[in-house]
């Protein structure tokens, strides 16, 4: 007997046993059989037909009406059978697409990969999680020969595959930048590249910061990027790291203002993408205030532990459905 007939036999058995003793054990067997039937690609219309034949066996005098009613049930179930078949095929396609996206995602990781610099005076933590299969967020660290550290955080307007494609394109531009240039000049030069090369409907927001471990100054400029925070540990206060500036790719000759702050011991610089602040819960978007409260809870941990915990917490209050790519970087002056 092939496995199909075995399953049919099993169905018959369960029904027969159930008729003499209606217990949950048999219903549970029914559920397990359901799984098996699906595994062996039995279609719902086949189940209906099987059920009909079992009823005939059970009740040789079954009324003609009951029997005929099954013709209509079968007809209606055909539509579900079609949906069921489409589902199997869609599931296979989905699986293939996932494999493909996984490969592309790994390529993207290799391409965009950046190492977190080790510095005596700065503890650095970073996390970046794509909302969909591929990220349109980007962050990058560079150390120049003077010991200064540059940090870039960018967000392609858009998500998923198109954003990833765009990101890969501007990555080349980033790589060809000269070292030892100030944040405003870096944004200005990137802006020219993006304006020239990237699809006219693609815009990029970017924050560029540069930390000098000698004087503990943090210089920064922003191209329309979501403001981060500065945490003053002495007064235990968060302030926005606001900076004016147009998005990259809008206007060829854009100039960017440059700002600076001075970091005391235990002060934090928090950089993020709007996926962090535009975290949507059942009740609506969270406030930036709530974000700083969450950060405060973990303020005594290392920078990497902090970003991990903040992510976990925000992930859960969104019911594990990120609506936007999530990137969070924390710089903590420790010496």
């Amino acid at each position, binding site marked *: 007997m092939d496995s199909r007939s075995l399953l049919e036999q099993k169905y018959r058995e369960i029904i027969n046993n159930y008729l003499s003793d209606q217990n949950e054990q048999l219903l549970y067997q029914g559920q397990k059989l359901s799984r098996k039937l699906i595994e062996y690609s039995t279609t719902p219309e086949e189940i209906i*037909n099987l059920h009909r034949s079992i009823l005939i066996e059970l009740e040789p005098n079954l009324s003609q009406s009951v029997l005929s009613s099954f013709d209509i049930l*079968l007809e209606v179930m*055909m*539509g579900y059978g*079609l949906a*069921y*078949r*489409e589902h199997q095929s*869609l599931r296979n396609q989905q699986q293939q697409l996932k494999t493909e996206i996984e490969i592309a995602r790994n390529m993207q990781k290799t391409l965009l990969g950046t190492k977190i610099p080790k510095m005596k005076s700065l503890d650095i933590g970073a996390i970046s999680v794509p909302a969909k299969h591929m990220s349109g967020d980007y962050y990058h660290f560079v150390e120049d020969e003077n010991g200064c550290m540059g940090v870039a955080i960018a967000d392609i307007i858009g998500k998923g595959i198109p954003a990833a494609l765009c990101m890969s394109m501007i990555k080349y531009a980033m790589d060809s930048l000269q070292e030892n240039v100030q944040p405003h000049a870096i944004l200005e030069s990137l802006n020219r590249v993006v304006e020239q090369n990237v699809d006219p409907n693609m815009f990029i927001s970017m924050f560029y910061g540069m930390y000098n471990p000698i004087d503990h100054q943090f210089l920064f400029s922003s191209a329309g990027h979501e403001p981060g925070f500065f945490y003053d540990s002495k007064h235990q206060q968060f302030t926005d790291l606001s900076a004016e500036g147009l998005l990259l790719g809008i206007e060829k000759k854009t100039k960017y203002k440059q700002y600076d702050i001075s970091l005391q011991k235990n002060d934090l610089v928090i950089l993020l993408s709007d996926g962090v602040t535009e975290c949507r819960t059942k009740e609506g978007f969270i406030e930036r205030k709530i974000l700083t409260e969450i950060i405060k809870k973990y303020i005594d941990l290392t920078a990497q532990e902090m970003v991990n915990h903040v992510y976990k917490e925000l992930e859960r209050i969104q019911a594990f459905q990120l609506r936007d790519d999530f990137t969070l970087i924390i710089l903590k002056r420790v010496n």
Partner: protein
Amino acid sequence: MEFRSCVKILNEWDIVAVRQLGRNVAKELNFGIVDQARITTAISELARNIFLYAGQGQICIEKIFKDGKSGVKIIAEDNGPGIQDVRKVMEDGFSTSGGLGAGLPGVKRLMDDFDIDSKPNEGTTIIVTKWLR
């Protein structure tokens, strides 16, 4: 001589007529109840397609015998606008007219063989076959 019978598809009543014809042929060939329903559903989808996209056409049902097997062959023809992009129409989830799983990919899955030939502005011919097992 092989059996062949055709129904012109001009309105919705003809869909019922061609379903009936298909179901009868399937019964005569000893297809089981479930296969009868599948063949009828496939015919129905093909007829609906003609009715919706070409306006009119015809569907022929043939009994076929080959290598000791018997089967039913359905030929759906129209002189409608044709299908611009057959690959797209054969994609799952593309059909918006029907429900989940309907449309030509559904027909293909219900039957054993499927062939389609469509020329823009000339029309479409779809030939499907189901073999008795």
